[in-house]
């Protein structure tokens, strides 16, 4: 049987890859996919703790997290479409309307 720390280490690695992706990419869609990756990593650690405690509540939380992630994806992609319509690019360095 695999120990719990392997699952948590995998979750930490995926979360870190997501953070680095958010920081180094400039394409808004890829940044958004990295956010999804980080959500997945957190879901994995929640599910690990749920499994190792034999408690169903963690799985329910992951279920709601999935629903919120779906809503977030819909709204975020709508915002990306809106940004693209305004300046014909999804490069976030070109979105500088509120930057001083």
């Amino acid at each position, binding site marked *: *049987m*695999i*120990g*719990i*720390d392997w*699952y948590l*280490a995998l979750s*930490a*690695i*995926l979360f*870190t*890859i997501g*953070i*680095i*992706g958010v*920081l*180094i*990419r*400039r*394409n808004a*869609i*890829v940044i*958004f996919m*990295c956010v*999804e*990756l980080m959500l*997945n990593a957190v*879901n*994995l650690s929640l*599910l*690990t703790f*749920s*499994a*190792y405690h*034999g408690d*169903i*509540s963690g*799985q*329910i939380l992951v*279920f*709601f997290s*999935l*629903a*919120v*992630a*779906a809503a*977030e*994806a*819909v*709204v975020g*992609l*709508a*915002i*990306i*479409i*809106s940004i*693209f319509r305004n300046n014909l*690019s*999804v*490069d976030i360095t070109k979105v500088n309307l509120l930057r001083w």
Partner: protein
Amino acid sequence: MDIYAFVLLAVLAIASALGMILNKNTINSALLLVVNMVSIAGIYLLLQAQFLALIQILVYAGAIMVLFLFVIMLLNVDEEQSLLDGFRVKYFLAFLLGVIIFGQILYSLGGVTDMLPEISPEMITVGTVEAVGDVLYTDFLYAFELTAILLTAAVVGALMIAQYKVKDSEGTE
């Protein structure tokens, strides 16, 4: 047997995640993220969470990633910036911050790793569709209904943000 499946799925997940953030083509990134989602669903199966593994594939790898691919192809953003030009300092700082956060998580993990319990034997019955539905429709019923309201609000909001307002020549709506 378990450990081989875990190592295979974990390597697949990490490799596809790395490929996702390093790939120049946005569509390739999205497809690699699908691979990542499916391998994470396999890890959910190893953790005896059958229902959530199914939902992961249906919702994430199915619905959300199809939405991503749809938007990518709609916007036609295949002219991608070359990843490693320009701000070297920025990339260095990004990797440094990532390593720091990873070290922090591993450090806090290492402090408790002896106290963590083993996988509990009743998990065979806990993760099934029957058990999840049983708890979801009794203890968490209000949260479940609120999720329905949230999804409705998200759809209406997305329509409001993304719809194309056609203006005629007088400039009125």
